[in-house]
């Protein structure tokens, strides 16, 4: 499956992930995609390497450490390593590990809310500068037509969807900027589950979805 991913993350997003400048919801998208995509994982590592070289090249003499800095660090070390709580992840789930951490379990732990026309969503707890949610679109159903403010990325976890231009299957990421109006339709063969992140609220066109939007916080 892995080498069939055709739609990848952009350089800008991968660089932002390495630099640590993305909103949490975007980091969740990247970590989820990297769990499925070796190509982007290798790219992400090279952006880490870029950060490493940049830090290596800073002069190092423009900042001084406190006088007792090394001793303080040694006593930190003597205090022992901080505990790391790692929740066991379910292998073979359609939710990659990073998503399981946010859902606090596997697919059956997702708290879906219907938002109309068979579409369901579950908003994931991230920082407020961007939002992340899981979307459930019944096989063959269309998402309401919507335009975007800001950047939206949608990654397929199960099933597939098609928009005017392309076909997206598991692991594929669709990146939509403000100029794109699109109507993705879920593939007929299977219900489609996606991770969608955006740094702005979606604006739906049409009365009914707008009301649904108000209640659904999207």
């Amino acid at each position, binding site marked *: 499956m892995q080498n069939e991913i055709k739609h990848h993350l952009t350089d800008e997003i991968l660089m932002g992930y390495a630099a*640590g400048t993305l909103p949490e919801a975007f980091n969740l998208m990247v970590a989820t995609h990297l769990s499925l995509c070796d190509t982007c994982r*290798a790219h992400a590592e090279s952006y880490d390497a870029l950060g490493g070289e940049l830090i290596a090249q800073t002069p190092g003499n423009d900042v001084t450490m406190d006088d007792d800095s090394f001793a303080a660090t040694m006593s930190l070390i003597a205090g022992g390593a901080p505990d790391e709580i790692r929740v066991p992840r379910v292998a073979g789930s359609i939710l990659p590990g990073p998503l399981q951490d946010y859902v606090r379990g596997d697919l059956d732990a997702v708290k879906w809310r219907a938002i109309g026309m068979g579409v369901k969503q579950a908003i994931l707890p991230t920082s407020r500068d961007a939002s992340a949610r899981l979307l459930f679109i019944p096989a063959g159903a269309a998402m309401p037509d919507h335009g975007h403010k800001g950047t939206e990325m949608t990654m397929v976890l199960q099933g597939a969807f098609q928009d005017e231009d392309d076909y997206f299957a598991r692991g594929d990421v669709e990146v939509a900027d403000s100029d794109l109006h699109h109507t993705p339709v879920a593939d007929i063969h299977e219900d489609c589950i996606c991770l969608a992140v955006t740094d702005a609220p979606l604006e739906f066109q049409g009365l009914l979805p707008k009301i649904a939007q108000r209640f659904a916080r999207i």
Partner: protein
Amino acid sequence: MFAGLDTTKSMEQPDPNVVAAAVTGHAGMEDSDGKRMLWVSHMVHIRDTRDQAAFKELFEHFAPRVKGFLVKSGADASLAEECAQEVMATCWHKAHMFDPARASVATWIFTIARNRKIDLLRKQRRPEPEDLGWGPEEDPDQADVLALQQESEQLGRAIAELPAAQRELVQRAYFGDLSHSEIADQTGLPLGTIKSRLRLALERLRHAMK
């Protein structure tokens, strides 16, 4: 290593004498600060023998750089100091996780500092991808280690040789906790210019890694 910049590079077999020199910790290669392989061997000593002298040298070199990175990212001096100490303590505790066939010591420390920055300054979680299912090997192939360290040296040189305007922009993209549109606001340059200049910088780096 630099798959993002060059996916076609083939790995050349390094000279065995150079490898032997690298293994024993005597840097058998020239690098920008002459110490790339030395840091790798220090990490091995910290991992295997809890070598405090090696750790002190590593600390003196990297702690101020980490602190500088955190200050540029918006931490005040005392928070940056505290945080840099924690980053260096993590290097000690997690020395067994460092894999010199996958990253330079500078890269590894950078990722620890970056994660601490997100945690402390942004007060956010940092989602990490699934483990690949294999940690660092007990004794990674020294040819792989040397090849990786040489590639990061090559990358370092390529960054140093970027035109000043491009290099400065790459630095801003990493140090300063700014998105590309925030950089545009700060510099007064149009977002399109920021993006194309960064793209040019990456193209140059890719070319240099061929």
